[in-house]
């Protein structure tokens, strides 16, 4: 309460932690003047589970299932990043076929993540129907991945030195059918969403991020690509068998929400291209490295391995002291860096814009909280 006569212009609006548009338990403390935001302070950590601390108290294999639970939407990229880091540390060679399978499944998972984002994002903007269209498509991917990984969401499929289960003809046929299906759907999304005047008005020139801001805030993923920087780990720091595939890195021009949206849509088409090529070129052979030790006990040293998830760069930093447990694991998650720019770009926008901007960052809150 304040004294009578004393004028108070601003007030605080608690946006979350329980709010339909924060996609998880994220809280943003807003200083408001009318409907305009004068200050936005994200408050994170509601879902902190201490993954990094868990890592120090488990051996390398035991920590693997945690990787499906950091970013539950693109879990396979986390599987891949962690496995590659450990493989690098121990010098394990992954057979070619296993690398191909990893790429196919990780790209399918990427599309699933993007589809969910498109749907949930449009729901934020008040369009309900695209959400169900996207989920309808995504369902196909979940069914496919269910076949090989055994789970639909928190995958734990890759192992040190390869993958435990081979893909079969039915999976491959299902992938090809899905590629054809999704390619046909892009036009629907275009007609329903991209050309919609209300959607354009809500996203054009809103939440603009400059290249300079990208560097200072260490943004990665569609956030930088929307701003016109062609930075994608799959191309910039090629890993696995990605260099063997022909694909492009879509980028935007203005760095606004619309560009980030378009980048993600076009990325799905590129992922389809990668999957198609990988299916064509899939070599025969083993799916696990021959001599994988029962006890992973790398020599002392450290390693940093980056992979591109649907949200940006996931970096797995492992310090080993020559023990069966890692001495320290740092998970560099993309959403953490990406969200930190919110206070800067949310100022002087409306609440409705905040919803649009926050959605366009594509945060996965458990990933930020770890």
């Amino acid at each position, binding site marked *: 309460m304040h004294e009578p006569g004393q004028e108070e212009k601003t007030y605080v609006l608690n946006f979350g932690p329980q709010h339909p548009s924060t996609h998880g338990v994220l809280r943003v403390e807003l200083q408001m003047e009318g409907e305009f935001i004068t200050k936005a302070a994200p408050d994170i950590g509601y879902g902190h589970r201490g993954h*990094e601390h868990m890592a120090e108290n488990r051996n390398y294999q035991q920590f693997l299932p945690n990787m499906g639970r950091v970013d539950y939407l693109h879990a396979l990229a986390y599987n891949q990043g962690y496995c590659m880091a450990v493989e690098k540390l121990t010098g394990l060679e992954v057979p070619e076929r296993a690398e191909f399978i990893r790429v196919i499944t990780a790209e399918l998972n990427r599309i699933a993540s993007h589809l969910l984002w498109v749907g949930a994002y449009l729901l934020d903007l008040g369009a309900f129907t695209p959400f169900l269209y996207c989920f309808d498509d995504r369902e196909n991917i979940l069914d496919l991945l269910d076949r090989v990984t055994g789970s639909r969401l928190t995958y734990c499929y890759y192992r040190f030195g390869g993958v435990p289960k081979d893909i079969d003809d039915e999976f491959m046929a299902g992938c090809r059918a899905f590629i054809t299906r999704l390619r046909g759907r892009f036009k629907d999304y275009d007609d329903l969403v991209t050309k919609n005047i209300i959607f354009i008005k809500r996203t054009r020139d809103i939440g603009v991020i400059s290249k300079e801001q990208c560097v200072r805030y260490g943004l990665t993923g569609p956030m930088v690509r929307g701003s016109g920087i062609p930075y994608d780990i799959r191309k910039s720091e090629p890993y696995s068998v990605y260099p063997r595939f022909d694909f492009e890195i879509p980028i935007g021009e203005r760095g606004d929400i619309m560009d980030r949206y378009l980048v993600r849509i076009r990325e799905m088409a590129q992922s389809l291209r990668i999957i198609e090529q990988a299916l064509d070129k899939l070599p025969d052979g083993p799916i696990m490295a021959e001599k994988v030790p029962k006890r992973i006990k790398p020599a002392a040293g450290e390693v940093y391995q980056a992979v591109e998830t649907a949200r940006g760069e996931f970096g797995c930093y492992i310090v080993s002291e020559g023990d069966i447990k890692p001495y320290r694991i740092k998970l560099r998650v993309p959403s953490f860096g990406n969200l930190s720019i919110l206070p800067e770009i949310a100022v002087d926008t409306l609440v409705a814009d905040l919803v649009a901007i926050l959605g366009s960052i594509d945060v996965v809150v458990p990933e930020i909280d770890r």
Partner: protein
Amino acid sequence: MLSERIKKALALLKLEKVEGGDYGKTGYHVEAAADPGQMPEVAKAMLAEGCFLESLTAVDYPAHFTLVYHFASYEELCRTVVHAKLDKRLMATSITAVYPAANWYEREVYDLFGIKFAGHPDLRRILLPLEADFHPLRKDFGATASNA
């Protein structure tokens, strides 16, 4: 070559160590070691080369903390790591003024390790509740899977 330019720029700062890294083994192109007090200058030099702060974290060794800074570039493949050994009784120096990205990373390090950063604008806990009285990633925190 960006790595050569970075090495040259860092050499000017008279750091403890600046050398090429074994990319195939560690994922680093440039490895450097610096005093925590030198970090703002290092950060300025890295920003001048167009690099972004990829990650900032710490490791708790029995005798000291080591702050680990990773830098990478959008333009060219080149990852730089800077290790900064920090005496457990001393404060680190914040690089938030150079890289706003460091703001949250430093808060996280403070939260999990209890390392204070001089010059940080808003050093509060970020992941744990504000009233927590522990720093879980310190090795003396204990709590293994069996006794947690």
